[in-house]
């Protein structure tokens, strides 16, 4: 068989997907030649923002490496711009002088950034934001710091601004309209976005009409219509894109705003197709990846001579790829008399959700802050689902439909096959399911490797995991959702979410509302639920001692012979003769059999009788000592070395910092025990790198480590980053502790929590000023209610009857010891 010749002009994401489709269906149908004006292979253009911000590298975002072209026998001319097409002879010719014959030609020339023809727009330093060359130019400019002005507060402009800011530039965004991203967001979400970005240090000027770009030999600033002048070392124009149609126009193809195509992506010449941002279909042009991939699949099938249903102008959904900003929008959300809104706002969490309904169908959705349910709403928009029956709970998303919370797996299982799961890479539910089945994939990494789903921004990881769980059933272990215990089928995360969303403030309320299968729970779930309530409602919830393990109930550690051990707090491991004398006196007075140093730099008094506990505590309190919470799922110790006060090698005051940290953290309950250490230099005498949270002082500041453990499992810490001041350490540790308190599953140490949510996510959140400060604030709020010495309370009479015998009338039988 004689192979036909296919020539492709352009090597972006759309032709890449088209060729993938073609090669899958008809691998031997064509000899393929690609002319690419950019001197490189096919890469994921929507992931340029993470490259700009430094979170990814170019290698991370390559879709097809050189090997792919070789394997598939494709000839790729890199850096060859096509200058001429002879439709009669069916040839294309490049600037480099290469001429290629075609039977079928595919236009994929993409789009050009729109440059506003302001005075000065040709000055060096005025850049677009379109391809890797632009990103490289920006990175070079950012290297010397300085100021950047971004013209355009839409999707691309904001991504560019955030990236430049992360590279250390001082950035101002000029936006013509009153609110940011007005094409994708309504006013409220636009306001939240502006607030978030402003708080993160971006300067944003709305209603800003740029008049002139200033500068002599290169850019020096921008002048607005009202006379305001802004200094700038670079100016980024990100006001929109225009389909790149000039070559098609010169070749005599029918064009309007873009190259005109029909539903089969055919141009006015039946042997020439066009796909991607260069086309115009039914008066629409496209810039988002999902519809481009849909077009590409149609072109691929057409070329393979498979039937297609043809392209239908789709609804599209938008996400902003700025670290720490979650927003999602889809459909139509203009206000109108025939429309209704469902709105959910949570001001403290910075969450805004709005659904726009018309005739009981969702036509638009805007989500800010919590976007996980976006694809679910989007699917209902596409399906035009009648939502009458779920109206009451609709805004809460798929997990809350059907009156009670349903299994989140079922909600995902119920999504139609063509639901787009991964917006970054345009992967649908059935793509993922087919890959799992056909290639026997068994974990998240496999799915990422084969489909790229969740491999880019990662926000759809949860959905992909649920698909794995659905396909593999019990065989999917690592991240499968485990119920809290046998009393419920709900997992820890869901229970915590529901406690907050349903305002559940007591254990019976949780059992009732979440339909516990046992009346009083069990020894596994009761302590977990009690902790979740303590964490969620620090000022309102009354701690239930009877849902705690005995050690936390009586604030001492039960020993195998039924006696208890008592460990007073020794702040940062520093004690005094007065404290030691008091401890010695207590040992003598109560005949305590064993006195032992612990690994956490304090003293353990073992073998205390339960009825003696209040009097032992009283004597220790008198010497100024409080409970060391050696029994707690909460802060245990902050181990220190001597630091600059004494040590020849010390770089910072490690002891002082350790004491400060311990004074800040004591009394806080947590999913599991929390041990810290502060080492004064990298010799690490306080062994900070195997703690839940560790600080290693260095000359330039404080390395913050976390997620270590030295128990059943031995694990070195992960280094988060280095901080400059003690105050920063205090804030970051408070925030990190609170994030763990709010997210960790009960009985998961920090390292297990990290395994579940991912180190990168935690680091990103912690580096986000807004989120970090909010977590730290929540922590300090909770501490207002929990920094009370439990020993002192009991010495003063709280629950005294539990420690005091009661008399009974009958001889030979007496109640001696109360058990609480």
């Amino acid at each position, binding site marked *: 068989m004689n192979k036909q010749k296919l020539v492709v002009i352009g090597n972006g994401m759309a032709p890449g997907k088209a060729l993938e489709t073609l090669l899958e269906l008809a691998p031997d149908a064509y000899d393929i030649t690609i002319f690419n004006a950019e001197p490189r292979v096919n890469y994921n253009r929507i992931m340029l923002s993470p490259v700009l911000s430094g979170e990814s590298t170019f290698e991370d975002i390559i879709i097809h490496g050189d090997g792919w072209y070789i394997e598939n026998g494709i000839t790729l001319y890199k850096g060859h711009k096509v200058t001429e097409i002879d439709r009669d002879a069916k040839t294309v010719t490049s600037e480099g002088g290469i001429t290629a014959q075609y039977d079928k030609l595919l236009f994929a020339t993409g789009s050009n950034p729109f440059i506003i023809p302001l005075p000065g727009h040709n000055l060096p330093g005025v850049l677009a934001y379109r391809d890797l060359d632009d990103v490289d130019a920006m990175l070079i400019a950012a290297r010397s710091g300085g100021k950047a002005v971004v013209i355009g507060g839409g999707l691309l402009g904001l991504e560019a601004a955030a990236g430049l800011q992360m590279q250390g530039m001082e950035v101002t965004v000029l936006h013509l309209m009153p609110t940011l991203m007005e094409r994708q967001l309504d006013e409220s979400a636009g306001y939240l976005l502006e607030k978030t970005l402003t708080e993160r240090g971006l300067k944003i000027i709305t209603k800003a009409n740029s008049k002139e770009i200033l500068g002599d030999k290169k850019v020096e600033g921008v002048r607005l219509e009202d006379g305001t002048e802004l200094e700038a070392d670079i100016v980024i124009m990100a006001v929109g894109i225009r389909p790149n149609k000039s070559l098609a126009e010169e070749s005599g193809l029918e064009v309007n705003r873009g190259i005109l195509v029909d539903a089969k992506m055919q141009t006015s010449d039946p042997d020439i197709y066009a796909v991607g941002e260069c086309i115009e279909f039914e008066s629409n042009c496209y810039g988002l990846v999902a519809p481009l991939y849909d077009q590409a699949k149609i072109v691929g099938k057409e070329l393979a001579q498979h039937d297609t249903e043809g392209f239908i102008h789709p609804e599209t959904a938008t996400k902003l790829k700025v670290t720490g900003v979650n927003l999602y929008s889809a459909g139509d959300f203009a206000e109108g008399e025939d429309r209704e809104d469902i709105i959910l706002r949570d001001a403290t969490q910075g969450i805004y959700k709005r659904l726009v309904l018309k005739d009981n169908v969702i036509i638009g959705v805007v989500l800010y802050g919590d976007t996980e349910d976006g694809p679910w709403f989007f699917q209902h928009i596409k399906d035009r689902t009648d939502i009458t029956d779920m109206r009451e709970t609709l805004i809460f998303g798929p997990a809350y439909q059907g009156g009670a919370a349903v299994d989140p797996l079922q909600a995902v299982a119920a999504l139609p096959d063509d639901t787009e799961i991964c917006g970054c890479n345009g992967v649908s539910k059935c793509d993922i399911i087919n890959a799992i089945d056909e290639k026997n994939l068994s974990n998240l990494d496999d799915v990422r490797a084969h489909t790229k789903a969740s491999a880019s921004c990662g926000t759809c990881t949860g959905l992909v995991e649920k698909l794995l769980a659905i396909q593999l059933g019990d065989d999917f272990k690592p991240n499968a959702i485990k119920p809290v215990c046998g009393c419920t089928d709900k997992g820890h995360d869901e229970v915590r979410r529901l406690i907050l969303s349903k305002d559940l403030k007591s254990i019976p309320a949780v059992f009732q509302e979440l339909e516990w299968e046992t*009346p*009083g729970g*069990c020894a596994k779930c009761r302590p977990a639920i009690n902790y979740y309530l303590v964490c969620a409602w620090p000022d309102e919830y009354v701690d239930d001692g009877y849902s705690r393990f005995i050690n936390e109930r*009586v604030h001492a550690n039960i020993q195998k*012979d039924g006696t208890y051990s008592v460990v007073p707090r020794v702040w940062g491991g520093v004690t005094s003769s007065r404290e030691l004398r008091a401890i010695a006196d207590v040992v003598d007075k109560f005949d305590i059999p064993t006195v032992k140093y612990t690994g956490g730099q304090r003293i353990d008094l073992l073998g205390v009788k339960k009825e003696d506990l209040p009097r032992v505590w009283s004597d220790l309190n008198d010497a100024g000592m409080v409970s060391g919470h050696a029994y707690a799922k909460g802060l245990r110790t902050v181990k220190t070395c001597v630091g600059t006060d004494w040590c020849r090698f010390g770089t910072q005051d490690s002891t002082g910092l350790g004491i400060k940290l311990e004074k800040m953290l004591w009394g806080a309950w947590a999913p599991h025990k929390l041990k810290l250490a502060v080492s004064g230099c990298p010799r690490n005498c306080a062994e900070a790198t195997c703690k839940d949270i560790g600080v290693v002082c260095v000359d330039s500041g404080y390395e913050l480590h976390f997620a270590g453990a030295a128990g059943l499992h031995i694990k070195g810490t992960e280094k988060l980053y280095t901080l400059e001041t003690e105050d920063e350490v205090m804030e970051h540790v408070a925030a990190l502790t609170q994030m763990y308190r709010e997210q960790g599953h009960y009985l998961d140490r920090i390292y297990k929590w990290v395994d579940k949510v991912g180190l990168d996510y935690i680091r990103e959140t912690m580096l986000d000023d807004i989120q970090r400060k909010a977590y730290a604030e929540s922590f300090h709020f909770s501490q207002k209610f929990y920094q009370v010495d439990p020993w002192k309370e009991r010495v003063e009479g709280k629950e005294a009857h539990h420690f005091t015998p009661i008399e009974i009338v*009958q001889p*030979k*039988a*007496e109640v001696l010891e109360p*058990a609480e």
Partner: protein
Amino acid sequence: MSKTALNWFDVCAPEDIPFQGSRVLRTPQTVIALFKTTDGEIFALDDECSFKTRKFSMRPEICPLSQGIVHGKLVTCPVHNETFSLETGESIGEDDERVRTYPTRLVAGTIQIQLALAVEAA
């Protein structure tokens, strides 16, 4: 004068035992745990989980069931995590373990327990 037989002994008022909590009752023969469920039902069991790690040790091993978590009509041992029925004293699980139970009753606002213990004249 004394005679050994089953006798009822006053213990305490129901209010003296916290809901979902317990009290310890020491008799000349043994130590008993008194439990009160959320419904206010009272149960009495030997205050010792019947599981023992049979390792050599200088120190006697006592794991008081009274210190466990009460849930429904069950209590979970704080040391071994084994769960026992408050009604029958039988363990819930694969091991066939049993803790002794004692009858209780409420007479004129006072909990009474039945013990094989002599009543001495005052």
